[in-house]
């Protein structure tokens, strides 16, 4: 009997890696296991197939799906928790399959409750994961890491603990919740992920959406690499002992609990060693692997015993969430097109005297190398907001020449951010320019971290940290600049540290009134289109609100004009001025 682990073309790396580990465990108990991608390998009459149903059957074209006979010799390897859409897909397909195993306690029970005799596949230690090998003296330069996909709930709790996080050396890798098929700055795969865990002291774990179940794969990967898990309270944790093998906390306190462990290295080391020993010595996959072999062997004997149910439909993809994309404002919807354009033209015609609105401050702490960073800051007359930003710049480990532009005459509908910023740029002279908005706060080591990132990567054009907006409970600047994503989402903004020469080469900031409120987004579109690369600093090193389009601005009046301007930016030519 051969166990054939099959992944779909375009399937997630997570699932492929999981099947690889299970296949290795099967081989470890004497089974014959092979890995495949795409369609089922040719039927040799001795093969049983293992797939992750909610992914394989969704991604594989219907005309390439296996026959009912092969499906009857297929084991569904289930990983999704009840209550999710993907669990529904899993249930639909498990009905067509010969057998199912599930790595979670709750979903195993739910499958059984629905009449499917699913077996629990208990995950455990895998030699393929272990990049630490129990070396207590190994260096761990990262205090806290986080490897969860972006999620409103997770982001909310991370934002609330941003300041506490900034006190530690953190590496927060928060990829989009998408099918991740390749490595990227915010998503590590295979050995890179395990080496990263072996270099980290604590892994934070937060549940996605409404889930409460422990993310076992992530937890095990951390445990076998000596990275202590601090998770929000979870179900299905046995045989893990809270406070012994890992630590738990309510979601808004995971950073405080992690900090407590980090402040007590002996306690941390004891937890690390206990978790590693448990994983290596007790959490073996041997029994589950042997059971999987047993199940597969049974399937070979009873193939075609029962008629296959109809193939379930493929679920519709989730709608793309909106993130401040230009759209007609509700208040403008009742205004005729011609009227909206007249209003937009009136807003666009307002001029601003750039030279008359410049203030200048020298702040920060000289680093001894004489290096000074220019900071361009635009505010709308809110002195408290400016004061907050200036105070945070004063705490940086670099000297900062702050050039402040305040569009005093700006109505709520229009802030001439582009012309004001360009005016400030002309008055500066230093090689690095920090673009920041009044009201944003840089945590003390933010600027130094960004500068170091650029120094270490001379080919990069800009660097930016993740930003927490505690008021909105949102985390942004958390994804790398990608041309396709920039066409869909508005997710990058100030603060941004950019090389002056790059900024000058791309023509500075757009002065097109149509992109008011989208200046940073528009700049990133142009930078990426011109081939420039940005560095996402994987730490939350700033807080404050993101630049938003003005409530009564041109984008709300004539969004099609703004959208067209952003599309033009992607095409490469300099930004046009005028509506």
């Amino acid at each position: 009997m051969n166990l054939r682990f099959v992944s779909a073309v375009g399937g997630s790396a997570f699932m492929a890696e999981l099947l690889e580990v299970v296949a290795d465990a099967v081989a470890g108990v004497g089974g014959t296991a092979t890995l495949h991608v795409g369609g089922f390998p040719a039927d040799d009459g001795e093969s049983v197939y293992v797939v992750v149903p909610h992914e394989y059957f969704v991604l594989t074209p219907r005309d390439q799906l296996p026959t009912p006979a092969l499906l009857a010799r297929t084991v569904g390897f289930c990983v999704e928790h009840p209550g999710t859409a993907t669990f529904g897909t899993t249930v639909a397909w498990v009905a067509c399959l010969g057998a199912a195993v599930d790595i979670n306690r709750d979903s195993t029970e739910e499958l059984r409750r629905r009449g499917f005799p699913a077996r629990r596949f208990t995950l455990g230690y895998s030699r393929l994961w272990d990049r630490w090998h129990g070396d207590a003296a190994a260096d761990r330069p990262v205090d806290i890491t986080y490897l969860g996909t972006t999620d409103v709930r997770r982001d909310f709790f991370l934002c609330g603990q941003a300041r506490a996080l900034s006190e530690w050396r953190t590496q927060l890798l928060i990829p989009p919740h998408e099918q991740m098929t390749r490595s990227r700055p915010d998503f590590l795969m295979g050995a890179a992920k395990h080496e990263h865990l072996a270099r980290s002291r604590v892994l934070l774990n937060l549940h996605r959406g409404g889930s409460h179940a422990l993310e076992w794969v992530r937890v095990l990967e951390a445990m076998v690499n000596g990275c202590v898990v601090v998770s929000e309270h979870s179900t299905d944790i046995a045989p893990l002992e809270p406070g012994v093998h890992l630590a738990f906390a309510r979601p808004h306190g995971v950073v405080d609990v992690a900090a407590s462990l980090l402040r007590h290295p002996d306690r941390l080391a004891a937890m690390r060693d206990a978790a590693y020993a448990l994983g290596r010595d007790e959490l073996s996959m041997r029994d589950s692997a042997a059971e999987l072999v047993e199940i597969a062997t049974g399937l070979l004997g009873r193939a075609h015993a029962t008629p296959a149910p109809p193939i379930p439909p493929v679920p519709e993809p989730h709608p793309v969430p909106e993130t401040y994309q230009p759209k007609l404002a509700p208040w403008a919807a009742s205004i005729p097109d011609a009227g909206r354009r007249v209003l937009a033209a009136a807003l666009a015609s307002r001029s601003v005297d750039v030279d008359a609105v410049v203030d200048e401050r020298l702040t920060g702490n000289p680093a001894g190398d004489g290096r000074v960073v220019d900071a361009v800051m635009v505010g709308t007359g809110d002195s408290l907001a400016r004061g907050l930003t200036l105070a945070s710049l004063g705490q940086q480990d670099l000297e900062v020449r702050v050039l402040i532009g305040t569009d005093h005459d700006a109505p709520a509908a229009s802030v001439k951010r582009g012309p004001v910023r360009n005016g400030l740029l002309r008055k500066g002279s230093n090689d690095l320019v920090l673009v920041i908005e009044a009201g944003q706060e840089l945590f003390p080591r933010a600027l130094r971290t960004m500068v170091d990132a650029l120094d270490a990567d001379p080919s990069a054009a800009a660097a930016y940290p993740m930003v927490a907006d505690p008021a909105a409970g949102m985390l942004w600047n958390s994804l790398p600049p990608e041309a396709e994503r920039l066409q869909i989402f508005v997710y990058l903004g100030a603060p941004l540290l950019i090389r002056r020469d790059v900024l000058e080469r791309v023509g500075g900031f757009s002065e097109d009134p149509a992109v008011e409120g989208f200046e940073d987004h528009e700049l990133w579109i142009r930078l990426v289109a011109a081939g420039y690369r940005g560095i996402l600093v994987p730490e939350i090193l700033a807080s404050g609100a993101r630049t938003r389009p003005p409530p009564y601005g041109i984008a709300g009046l004539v969004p099609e004009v703004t959208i067209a301007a952003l599309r033009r930016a992607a095409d490469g030519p300099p930004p046009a001025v005028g509506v």
Partner: protein
Amino acid sequence: MVGDDLGDPMVIESRTVTVTGIGSTTYPSDSDGDGPTGERFIPEAMGDSLIEAEHQVRYRFASAAAGGRRVLDAGCGVGWGSLLLHEAGAAAVTGVDISDEALADAAARAPEARFVRADLQALPFGDDAFDLVTCFEAIEHVADPHRALDELRRVLTPAGVLLVSSPNPHVYRAGNPFHVHEFEPSELLAEVGRRFAHAVVWAQHGHVGSVLRREGDGDEVVTDIGRPGSTETALYSLVVAGDGDLPALTGRAALVSSREIDHLEEAAEALAAQGHSVQAEWERVHAERDAYLAEHERIAEERERVLAEHAAAQAEAARLSSEVTSLRERLRVADRERLREAADRDRALLLLLESEQELARRLRPPLDGPSS
């Protein structure tokens, strides 16, 4: 005898020397300085000057008593007077001086005379060795003029005659560094008079004169002294003394050309010119001094300003130092507070850690239910 005690006097051989100066006990060395000091008359250097007339008149006055006598010229210098005494018919002339250089010159000038290097206070001659002793403008140079007078008295025969002169300190320009003691005329007369039975003081005045004579006439001219001075006002006093009868001597006048006056006028003009130069230099120096004073005043004001600034800076430094001390104290308190807060926070976090684990343990059965 004193001379026996001192041994044979040293006789200076006749030889040709270049006269560069004069010497005696308190004379400057002949080799010192840039030229004649005037303390010793050197005819080659001082001819046609008042000093020549002064020497001429003294030695020619003495020459009247020199004929046939053994003469000691005490303080002979370069021997000019010794030569005159010899030419006046002295039986023998012995010159004494303290300067070897002067004596060498004297020997060359008056080969017939004998010259001996000796101190007037200890003459290397026996008693009664001389009939006539001249001591012109020398007694004021010796450290112990009374002893010198004793010596001059000792070497004279009982019938001998002493002619001794001294500048009058009341008239003579004061401050001559080579003169030990200048005798007032009455003092000189008294000192000499104590040692001899007879003593007469003569007054030697300096005069400006004019001579009217025909060429070829002898030296005999009638001399009229317009306003003869008294002994007390004389520039020099000369005492003639002896135990026997004093020789019949007549007053003499020696005239030299008035070129010295011309020279003096030239010198005056030169001095006037020099005065102008000095005046200009003085004015320049004065102006420079004024500039220096102004600069000094400016520097003094600057100093005052700097001192004031320094004082203000010190006050500011003291204030800042006090502020630093205060801030340090506040920082220390803040640090202590921070450490206390950090410890509190650490305890709170630890408590949170423990309580959350306890919570997790308590949540476990209700969340997970019975093990499957």
